């Protein structure tokens, strides 16, 4: 304010200073905003509605009969551009000839939420959810293991399904079961979904 503004007469400057004109202008803006509906959300008291296509934390899904969908094919790992997935697979001792993941890790700190893994998955075992609150003081918690991933999937199953629909990966359970792989063919035991 000390610098002399250009193009103002001295008189005008003195008047502005005496009448606090600048403060008045500022107050006008403040007061006018007090009566406008705020655009920010009062997070965490208030939460936003998230669109179905939103890319949030990843979860692993089960079929409706409780069987793990994931066949441990590792295509998600191959597709992941930031290399944050690790799958260890084996033959399922309980159901010979079926392949499953014995271990599954997603390092969510590295994940760039591109959704490629979900696209790569041939059985729609992976999906993104609307979950985004997993801040922690312990970074190790951010390497999601198989148990955690299935917990996420279970908790957010409806969102996950909506994600898959939104991304054109699944239409509805009955129809998708037509093209969803049951591996290998000679392994029995996957019951088609009841009409949902």
């Amino acid at each position, binding site marked *: 304010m000390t610098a002399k503004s250009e193009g103002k007469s001295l008189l005008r400057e003195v008047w502005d200073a005496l009448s606090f004109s600048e403060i008045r202008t500022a107050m006008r803006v403040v007061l006018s905003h007090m009566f406008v509906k705020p655009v920010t959300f009062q997070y965490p008291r208030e939460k936003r509605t998230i669109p179905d296509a939103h890319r949030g934390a990843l979860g692993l899904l089960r079929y409706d009969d409780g069987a793990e969908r994931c066949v441990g094919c*590792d295509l998600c790992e191959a597709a992941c551009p930031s290399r944050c997935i690790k799958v260890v697979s084996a033959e399922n001792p309980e159901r010979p000839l*079926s392949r499953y993941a014995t271990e599954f890790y997603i390092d969510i700190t590295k994940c760039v939420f591109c959704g490629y893994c979900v696209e790569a998955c041939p059985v729609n075992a992976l999906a993104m959810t609307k979950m985004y609150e997993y801040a922690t003081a312990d970074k190790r918690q951010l390497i999601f293991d198989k148990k955690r991933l299935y917990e996420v999937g279970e908790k957010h199953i409806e969102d996950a399904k909506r994600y898959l629909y939104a991304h054109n990966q699944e239409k509805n359970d009955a129809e998708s079961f037509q093209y969803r792989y049951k591996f290998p063919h000679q392994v029995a035991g996957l019951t088609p979904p009841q009409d949902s």
Partner: protein
Amino acid sequence: MALKPVTSPDVEAPPIRLTVDGQQVEAKQGVSLYDVISQTGKTIPAMCYHYTFDPFGSCGMCLVMVEGKKAPVRSCTAKAEAGMVVRCEGEDLFLARKKAVEKHLTVHPLDCPVCDADGHCELQDMAFQHGVTNLVNAKPKGLPEDRRSLVLDFNMNRCILCGECINICKDVQMVDALQFFKKEGTTHVVAKGDEGLVCEFCGDCLAVCPVGAITNKYSKYVYKPWQLKKTTSTCAYCADGCQMYIETSGKGVQRVTSPLSWKNKWGDRAETAKGHGGLCVRGRFGFQYIDSKERLGAPLVRTEEGFAPRSWFEVMDTVIGRLKALKAQHGPNAIAGLITARCTNEELYLFQKLMRTAIGTNQVDSSARYGHLNFTRALQHAAGVGRVMNGYEEITKANVLLLIGTDITETNPVASLRVKEAIRVYGAQAIVATSRMTNIAKLASHPLRIAAGSERSFIQALVKAAVEEDLVDEAATTAAPEAFAALKAAVGGLSWDVLTARTGTSRAVAVESVRLYAEAPKAVILCAEGVTRQVEGYASVLNLVDLAWVTGKLTRPGCGVSALPEEANEQGAVDMGVAPELLPGQALYGDEEARGKFATAWRCSLPPPDPSATLMEILKRCRDGGIKALYLVGENPLATLPASTGVREALEKVELLVCQDPFLTETGRLAHVVLPATTFAEKDGTFTNLEGKVNRVRPALEPYEEARPDWEIFAALGTGLGYPMEYEAAQDVQREIMKLLPGYYNLGEARPVIATPEGYLRNGFAHTVAVRYAAGSEADGARPFALTIGQVLYHSGKLSTRASGLVQLYPSKGRLQMNPEDLAQLQIGPQDVVRVTSAGASVELRTEANPDLARGTCFFPEHFNEPPIKDLAECVVDPTTGVPAFKFTRVAIEKH
């Protein structure tokens, strides 16, 4: 003939010219058109073709247009003819090939995500290349997986009926264990007889299957190719020196694969004379020991309460302190060392250097002493060649192969493929003299079932027959008339009655065999444990040299005498001078000048040749108390030698027994200190294979827990003992060896061999020959059965018994194998216990019929010792080489 003349150089065919894509090409008439095209550098898709066998023509991918023909033709089965005009590319061909892929895919399950071939599948590649994205009416076969066989699962849903598995098994392995079989309207690949597989389990069928129809039980579903790190290394089981890919994930070794694969189908068949790139059952399926939970994870020290883990620092301090004290008190000859020939060349070199410099004793030996030294010493002495005379190519291209005392298909399976190829492709005659009708004997033109343990007499009979029938080579014998006269006199002293009675063959058989051998332009003798590990093995090898010499086969190219060592680097152990009589490069330790050279290079004086000690002498001195400290590297004499040698007493007597091994062995349990060593898969270095080719060993894994490579431990010990060994890596040792033995590391090629028998024939031959043709003692009538303790295909030494995969294939059965007629005569049933009695011991066990054994012989695998069958044998030490012979004995068998 079903041969492809283009790749069999011996087949005569007129040269022709034809045009491929506008380019003039020369070829031989009648060869596969596909081969002609691939010679021009073009690769056209082919799913049922592999260069190692004849074209089969089932997949319909290798289509080309030949001028004058309306439809595309299959180039693999089409024969090249003069003036053909061939087109390999074009929209029409692309679409025709695409149609072929689609045809395969319409009956395909498309379960790539769970298929073990995913990412390494030719059908997948072809579908991708030809843009097959939309299949209508796909109808998978829906067959159950065939899991009846050991190791291999057959999923016929994925089979494209290319026949590669059947063809490689029939043509290359000559096992012929697989066949097409029609069941309920679908063609399957099944084991012969539609049962579980009975075969050599080489896994070559698995390697060439272009899809996921054959899968490996030991790595089922546990990997995707992109998850694995692939390390090229050399197999550590036998001396064939096969190259292998060790594929590892964070969880250890997941599978082992071979250069032979459907992906390498564009080879030149002439090259297979040097090897086809495959592996045997041990190499491919015996990897589990590498990251086995039984591995030693930390150095152990024996305390009152048993073994206690200690830090490396502490243990090395103890060992060095104890060695120093013993040396100060009793002199350097109170210490001795033994090392296994499964170590790398660098380690073997460093070990003998450590013993001779830092410790200062010449009491150092390796497991090559169990037999291979009989061969190298004899050949060095007689022909100036300290190793086998023939490489793989010479074996493959020999006209006559004389196999004596070798179960080559069991001990050196991939080398046996060279013999098989000689028989199949090059039409060689094979004379196989053995007491077991092994697989190679079944394929041989002249299988001779000789009595067990009579190899020595049989060799004598051959030499005698050659001399008597005048099958001798003029030039060779006239050059050394004195030697020849002496030989003549020596064989004259042998009686045919004795020889035929011992061998169980007639004079006519010996004459026929030797005639065949003598008259062949290229003839190779192959021998192994039945000669080198038997009593008087050294003399027997010299007798074989006699045979080669009198028939003019010793110096002629393409001929020679060769032996098949058992462990991976026995030749290397000899070459690195890990024997009291040898220095690196097989210089004689007794040679003042050679010793001087190494003393200068190592900046230290070397111990005098006296006292030296070989393996058996070392054990004897341990027993007598002369040796107070024994350092064993990978050696397990307690489990190897029969009890009658007093091995246990020797090991219990020493004041300091240090065992360095990846596992806690029987011997290790007696040790005061156990040092954890690594397996070959964690090592850098080289192995010298039986041909004399130096092959790289590369680390595929980090050392298991606290285990360290052997060379590192040697270097630390040397330095601790006051002889600085400052090597940072195995390559530093390698550089030192290169300096001392220039030319040793010509990696990749076996060095040519020139035999120089002149000196040997002139000096001393006449004096020693008579002894070599002495008849020896009579068999004892009270113990009518011959017991051989030998190797089986599925195992190698004791090491393979730590590989769960191989144990599944061939577990310890604890049964004595006998000829079924003998069993019937003695009225022994499978549940009956028999008592087997030898001169010094007896054991009780059950029996098992094995029709491959000659009557009067019985067999027990050397890898197992339940019940303690090895203790039946007595041990005879060769007077010249100190090689202990203990794999053969005479026994009496009675029903209990």
